[in-house]
């Protein structure tokens, strides 16, 4: 009975300390690849449910509540419906690119979960360059979106894709700089080590500015409101996926929410202590934290209007970028000065004061341009 043994070993392995990479038993890769795929799909269903119910709740309506208990099966019903839809390729489309693009968007989302720890050491690969891997892989889906926009031969798609490329290139910088602050304090790029470093204090208390930057920049990078310019439904019809239908469209839908799950996972791993926190099993904490972060994103989406493209750029370069540099500098100085481990809370207070002062200062200095050109 090979398979039950594998299952038992796998379950046992979940709580084990991550061995160095490579060198796992072969079934480690199989089990965790499966876990990652199932996890991401289940989480996507979860966040779609949260999104739809929470948005409905904010907008004083009911939301889906007919399919299954509390409408929980709505996402599955939608999936079945969308699978039966015809897939239409526009006549002038660049067909090969048009067909590949959805996969290019969705694949990186699953890949990122390779380095996310669900419990202590329970991860596909404990890369010692974990965060770098996350940043690098998450940028790939931009290529997919641009492929979609370019190959559709539709002007709305093209504008949407161009907007996405511009925003992702700009927002990558403050996001990476915000991540660097965490790396400095934890002293490691591995996500597992970063979670372990938050044993006593989650980094949101130590690095409030970093959290703020990552949250705002992350919202822009995964194109959630108020930065959802690439699919801006009131202007660009559906943005880069205007021409997609059927399962290809569903891939974008999944990819979009997958990216939201990834961003929520990164935020909760780096700033909210990942799987740590008592009483409940680690993976459950991680899921709860992901949902919490995602709920905050839904909240902003339900409340705020959309910014304009020049304002989007201005926020990245005039607001987030200087703050990210200051945050990195201050954190580096604090680490360099050898801040004692048991006085981490004091560092948190200092950083919170800094956050308040900086944001007040910048909101005074910073003015949104009107963006009109002379014709």
């Amino acid at each position, binding site marked *: 009975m090979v398979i039950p043994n594998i299952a038992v070993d796998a379950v046992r392995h979940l709580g084990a300390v991550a061995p160095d990479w490579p060198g796992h038993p072969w079934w480690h890769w199989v089990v965790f690849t499966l876990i990652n795929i199932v996890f991401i799909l289940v989480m996507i269903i979860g966040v779609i449910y949260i999104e739809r119910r929470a948005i409905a709740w904010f*907008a004083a309506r009911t939301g889906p509540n007919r399919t299954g208990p509390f409408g929980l099966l709505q996402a599955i019903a939608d999936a079945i419906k969308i699978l039966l839809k015809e897939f239409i390729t526009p006549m002038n489309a660049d067909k090969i690119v048009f067909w590949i693009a959805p996969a290019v968007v969705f694949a990186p989302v699953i890949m990122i979960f390779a380095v996310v720890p669900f419990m202590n050491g329970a991860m596909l690969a404990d890369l010692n360059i974990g965060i770098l891997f996350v940043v690098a892989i998450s940028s790939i889906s931009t290529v997919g979106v641009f492929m979609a926009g370019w190959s559709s031969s539709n002007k709305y798609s093209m504008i949407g894709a161009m907007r996405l490329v511009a925003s992702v290139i700009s927002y990558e910088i403050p996001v990476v700089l915000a991540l660097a602050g965490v790396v400095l304090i934890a002293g490691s790029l591995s996500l597992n080590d970063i979670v372990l470093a938050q044993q006593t204090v989650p980094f949101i208390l130590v690095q409030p500015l970093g959290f703020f930057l990552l949250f705002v920049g992350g919202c822009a990078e995964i194109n959630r409101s108020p930065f959802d310019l690439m699919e801006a439904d009131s202007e660009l019809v559906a943005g880069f996926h205007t021409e997609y239908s059927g399962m290809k469209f569903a891939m974008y839908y999944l990819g979009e929410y997958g990216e939201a799950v990834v961003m929520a996972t990164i935020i909760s791993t780096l700033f909210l202590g990942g799987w740590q926190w008592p009483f409940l099993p680690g993976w459950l904490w991680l899921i709860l934290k992901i949902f919490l972060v995602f709920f905050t994103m839904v909240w902003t989406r339900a409340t705020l*209007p*959309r910014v*304009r493209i*020049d*304002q989007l750029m201005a926020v990245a370069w005039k607001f987030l970028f200087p703050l990210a540099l200051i945050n990195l500098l201050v954190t580096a100085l604090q680490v360099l000065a050898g801040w004692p481990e048991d006085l981490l809370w004091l560092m948190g207070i200092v950083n919170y004061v800094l956050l308040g002062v900086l944001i007040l200062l910048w909101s005074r200095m910073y003015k949104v341009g009107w*963006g*009109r050109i002379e014709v």
Partner: protein
Amino acid sequence: MQLRTEPYVLNMGPVHPSTHGVFRMRVTLDGEAVLNLEPVFGYLHRGVEKLAEERAYSGVIPLTDRLDYVASMTNNLAYVLAVEKLAEIKVPERAEYLRVIMSELQRISAHLVSIGSFTNDSGCYFTPFLYMYREREKIVDLFDMVCGQRLLYNYMRIGGVSQDIPDEFLPALRKVVKHLPGRINEYDRLLSENEIFLARTKGVGILPKETAINIGASGPVLRSTGIEWDIRKKDPYSIYDRFDFDIPTGEAGDCYDRYYVRLQEMRQSIRIVEQALKQIPSGPVKADVPQLIRPPVGEAYGHVEGPTGEVGFHVVSDGGIAPYRCHIRAPSLMNLTGLYDMSVGWKVQDLIVIFGSFAITMGEIDR
């Protein structure tokens, strides 16, 4: 430094989420900036003016419903005012009060729709829109009570209104009037100070005063430029001279002012309804007018201050049972004439916001 690229033409509409119907804009774009704009309309043309010539005077009223279908009551009123002027019909007191109450409720409900869809155009994902519709629903319920319809009311008649209000109407109206100001304040707090909303609307799509007068703009679009022009005050029709209310005006004539004028106008409308509720007398609601009237030869112009602006009907009689000519002054069309001047040079996103700030209805533009 400005980077110029090869301009291209983008067809926005006739089927587009933000064109409020079947409006089409042929936009020449340089990257995201609008270089040229050519509005194309007529997709919803039904020939209402010609149809009116084929119908008896009372039969034209349902047609007016279908012009600005967001504000049917005021359209009805403008038409019946014109015919009453033509045939010199005296309207009973109670009917006048009912007309005022209905038009003001209609103004509130239309402004709720305009503000809601405007926020939707600026990218609030349906939240304010559905809040506005929640309030509009209560007003629509009131209309349902008096005329049995929820969108196309067909309530006004030549010489009064079609029927008296039911007993439960006035208590329900009092409840709505009591409830609304708090809600409007809530939306004011949600939107008027919102940083992103301000960044998107303040200073965007400025309509200069002179242009506004030259294109014949009216309603909130004109008042947002700072001109105090309201038919209810300047040429009081019905019994508007009996009520005490202000004309809210803007300063800059930008999208924000157009939004804010509408928001304040809802408060003024509530004031009028409150006063009318106190004064409303009992009595008949319709003068003794036959179904088929033959007004004397002549012409008359009836106009009211509708939610989008001055709604006017110019009715010409040749002594027959049907109007010889019925010209409609559609405020949306007049206001929309300023679109080119306001939106050239702005980004595509601004174009949508500017267009949304007019709160047009295609049924009225294409007629």
